[in-house]
């Protein structure tokens, strides 16, 4: 392998930061999917899952910025700086770098909306945050296609590992979503659980079949009485 010289440093840095960014993004996604009641990493306090998720996403942005800048600085191929955010504007590997730009744009949207989360409606923030499920696969495709690094050897294993980890977290998340009790059924489920806990099968006295007529109503008006 060629040594890292001052002229090849930017290129190697770009490749290295790209790999790190992919790993970070995978961890961010997995942590994001764990943020619910059941999702606790052993040994980590609850608040740490949220904090890590946020901090690592910021770190990933930093790495991606370095990743893009060093790729531009490297003079071997011509990549305009703007192609980091505007897709398909690079002459070199236009398509694959374009994917990277798209993914990065989505990430910036996610982070920007999270920073002003207090001012946004919950629905808007959530809708934008769902774009993460688009951002990661696009980033992954970019990683595989933009250079041959991840297509063989240890780095391929790493890429596969990231994909597997994400798929596992996603499967777990989908299963717990499917198992979630819809709001309208929650109380009945809770009552059934409480009866079960009480350890008896005795049902409560059943409520009346018909609503009793306690006074005048349409169809059965009774005489209202003035009170002296």
């Amino acid at each position, binding site marked *: 392998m060629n040594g890292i010289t001052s002229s090849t440093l930017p290129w190697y840095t770009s490749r290295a930061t790209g790999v790190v960014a992919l790993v970070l993004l995978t961890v961010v996604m997995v942590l994001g999917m764990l943020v619910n009641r059941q999702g606790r990493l052993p040994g980590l306090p609850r608040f740490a899952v949220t904090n890590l998720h946020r901090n690592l996403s910021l770190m990933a942005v930093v790495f991606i910025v370095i990743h893009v800048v060093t790729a531009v600085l490297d003079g071997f191929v011509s990549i305009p700086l703007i192609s980091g955010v505007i897709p398909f504007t690079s002459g070199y590997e236009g398509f694959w770098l374009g994917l990277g730009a798209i993914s990065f744009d989505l990430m910036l949207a996610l982070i920007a909306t999270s920073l002003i989360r207090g001012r946004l409606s919950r629905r808007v923030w959530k809708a934008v945050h769902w774009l993460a499920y688009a951002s990661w696969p696009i980033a992954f495709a970019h990683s595989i296609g933009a250079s041959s690094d991840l297509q063989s050897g240890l780095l391929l294993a790493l890429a596969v590992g990231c994909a597997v980890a994400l798929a596992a977290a996603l499967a777990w998340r989908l299963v717990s979503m499917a198992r979630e009790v*819809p*709001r*309208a*059924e*929650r*109380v*009945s489920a*809770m*009552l059934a*659980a*409480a*009866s079960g*806990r*009480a350890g008896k099968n*005795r049902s*409560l*006295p059943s*409520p*009346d*079949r*018909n*609503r*009793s*007529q*306690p*006074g*005048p*109503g*349409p*169809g059965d*008006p*009774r*005489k*209202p*009485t*003035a*009170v*002296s």
Partner: protein
Amino acid sequence: MSAPQGQVPGPGFGPDGLPRLLPPSVNVPEGLRDHLARHGFVPYRNARRQLIGDLEAAGLTGRGGAAFPVYRKMAAVAEAGGHPFMVGNGAESEPASNKDMSLLWLAPHLVLDGLQLAAEAVGATEAALYVHEVEAGPLGELLRRALSERWSARIDRVLVRLASAPPRFLAGQETAMVNLLNGGLALPTYAAPRVFARGVGGAPTLVQNVETLAHIALVARFGPRWFRQVGTAAEPGSMLCTIHHADGSARIVEAAIGTPLPELIGADLGPHGLDGGTRAVLIGGYHGTWVPAVRAAELTLDNAAMAASGGILGAGVIAALPANRCGLAEAARVVRYLALESAGQCGPCLNGLPRIAEGLSTLSGPRPSPEVRADVERWAGLVTGRGACSHPDGSARFVRSALAVFSAELRHHEQGLCSAASQRPFLPLPAEVAVRDEDWS
């Protein structure tokens, strides 16, 4: 409670000036012609806010259960500007209460007069009348006909939409109602701005119970002095009550506030009461409190008297539980219903009410273990004040008073005995349970 010197003329065909709201044709809905003959046309002021001053002088408070001063609510909406929205709340979701439905059936035009007058006072440009399940059925037809008659005769100035409330206990809750009118489900909201500032369609919204609207319609005609001729100084006027007697009969009564309870349920409380006497009296509905029969005999029909014993008057439900029933069993049935009617949105309510319901069910059975009562008390404390609405608070109040008033019965149960002779359910409860989101729309 006696009329001051120089009685001001007004409706009320009894010697004490009652009833005021309910029409002389006691079983039959009062049609538009009869209403106009009795009351005349709607006394529009042709000026916004004038009525609010009269309502302040009259001291009218809301008759939906919260007893909030009417003039203050109206002033808040009037001051909010914009194009206010007016809602008449007839969603009487309390199963033991039937006074709003009866009023709408018997004197709809009095309610609708009040709706127009309140709308005028706050400058509302749109209005709705919100009643349970009026897409079909006799009440819905009657109200639709009444509204169309008034509109054709140009009696109404603001067009009133008849809106149907789902058969849920929380459907009449203010934020839930606004949610539904805005196209959503009848579920309470939390962080939303107050309804008088932003409600239906984002407009400042005035919500008044239908009985309150009927009183407004009379105050507008006969003035605050007339209104204060019955009732107490602090709580003037009359109110509609739903009285459940110990023999199982029930009636709607319009009574002056401050009336001693024996005048309403004396036959039940007496030594030779109906069906063997009364065990205890439930006052204020299923978010209200139980009162031992002896204590009830000393109470008067006003919030001040009720507050002194930690109770509320609510929407005027008074139920005399016969001595041959088990108070704990009745309470358990009610709390199971209250639990099932939880919106299920807030953790403490969702977790606490079903556990409390199951606990009460255990206590109403033989030989409950000693920690069950302590658990129920603890859970009642845990749900209070920790939800988006007052459903858990009211339910906890009902539960705690049941445990206090029926503590002697609980001691019987701990010995495996029950002093009740009849297992027949007494308090009315609906059978439908909400299972899907559609049940809340």
